[in-house]
């Protein structure tokens, strides 16, 4: 049990716990907080693989901007707690067992398909290498993506404008 495996297990457990909590929480704000935990734990997993720039940008963009938007919307819409009802008989006796069986099957096939992979020691990818790749070989998709984001921004502005202009 090297330190890498131990840290990976902890981070993976935190990610899965956050994701499960996201579904099971009653209040949307608590779900949003669980999603923030998932994002930060994912950043830790990226860091474990040596992708330091991606980890930092994951926290800045996902944790610090996108989730802030989610939290704002939940606060402004004043979404309240959800009601809880008991599981129907169909869900309890057929749905949940079938869901567990499906999960186990998927886990089995993934484990079988990746059993030949060994743990490689991750090399830290420096920001310089990443930016060389991004701005030399992949510059065209990069510019197209920025165009796409610009179009989305314009579309959101047009859709959200008040209709007081004749």
């Amino acid at each position, binding site marked *: 049990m090297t330190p890498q495996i131990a840290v990976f297990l902890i981070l993976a457990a935190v990610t899965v716990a956050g994701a499960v909590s996201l579904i099971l929480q009653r209040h949307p*704000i608590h779900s949003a*907080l669980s999603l923030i935990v998932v994002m930060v734990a994912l950043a830790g997993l990226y860091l474990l693989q040596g992708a330091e720039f991606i980890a930092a940008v994951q926290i*800045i963009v996902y944790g610090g*901007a996108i989730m802030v938007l989610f939290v704002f919307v939940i*606060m402004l819409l004043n979404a309240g707690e959800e009601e809880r009802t008991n599981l129907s008989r169909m869900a309890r006796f057929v749905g949940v067992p079938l869901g567990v069986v499906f999960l186990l099957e998927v886990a089995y096939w993934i484990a079988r398909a990746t059993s030949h992979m060994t743990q490689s020691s991750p090399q830290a990818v420096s*920001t310089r290498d990443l930016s060389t790749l991004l701005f030399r070989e992949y510059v065209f998709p990069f510019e197209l993506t920025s165009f796409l984001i610009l179009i989305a921004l314009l579309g959101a502005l047009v859709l959200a404008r008040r209709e007081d202009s004749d």
Partner: protein
Amino acid sequence: MNEFASHHPLLVVALPKIAVLLFVLLTTLAYLTWFERKVVAHIQARWGPYRVGPHGLLQPLADGLKFLFKEDVTPAGADKFAYFLAPFLSLSLAITSIAVIPFGPKGFTVFGQSTPLAITNLNIGLLILFAITSMSVYGVALAGWSSNSKYSLLGGLRSSAQMVSYELALTMSVVGVVLMAGTFNLSEIVQAQQGFHWGFVPRWNLIGSPMPQVIGFFLFFTAAVAETNRAPFDLVEAEQELVGGFHTEYASFKFAMFFMAEYSSMITVSCLATILFFGGWLSPFPQTMGWGWTRYIPAATFALAGLALIIHGVRYLTIFGRFVLPALGLGLGGLGVLFARPGVPEFVQGPFWFLLKITIFIFVYVWLRGTLPRLRYDKLMDFGWKVLLPLSILNVVITSLAIVWTQR
């Protein structure tokens, strides 16, 4: 012991460093409140705390005890988890950001393990600082929302919108420095500022070589003052007088945690400003032949301060002060003598200049608070989006052009 140290570097080296830094930081936070109250008071032609201990030096202790003993009220209908999480998140994020800041060039050796004068030396140190800054919006937003009070909600939403807006200008204004240094590593950014133009003007990023980062510095400092919710952008603090801010419904210690988080962010931003634009722990004097006497400036400063305290203290008003102030003066004088002994000046140079520059920046922060009036909210958002952000993008463009030109 050296064997043990080489097998357990975390335990022997990192944990004591963290403990020492945490202790020093928390004490500095407490005395920063004293410093602010004294400076703002003197700007307003009065004395500030004067009675609790000589020159009010025990005032932070009294305030801390007051916060600990006040009744801890939780508003009815508050979302308990978010209500308890918000101050904890604010304070822990604010204090964590000190971990990536380098205080000096050389390290020291503890039981055979040499370690730099910083807790970590990350290759992405600057990015991690910005990541922590962007996560600290949650403390404010959750605090405002979970208090179940309309004033808190409005204050919290406005404050988090302000922080998110000025974060953009903050990160863009630093890109010029990163372009010139070529790295995100804070120690390397400081080391790239070594050397002197024409022999005596220091090569700090403010007067940097392809492009002086003057605009970058002013943008950075303005955005940082807005980011830490300080005057003149302090609607949150001020709305306590006007309406209510995100920490209206917070009682004793949680309120203290928010304030500690704010002062801690102030310290972090001052550290960043000195590292990025003012040469960090580099001395403003050249290190060549005729300037060797400047290595004794720390020693001289401490010795003179100690002497002044002793002379002032023996004629102080209260008898308690007549013991404490000269004792403090003797302590400072002793430190001054210590810094003049052979072998110590090189070690103490870096941290001394770093701390001096941080103190100047914190003084500027408090000066701004005492002097400037508050900005109205819509003017504040206009300023952030329509002035700071375009100027910071312009700064990036001009710096890139200058770098490409001089490398041609």
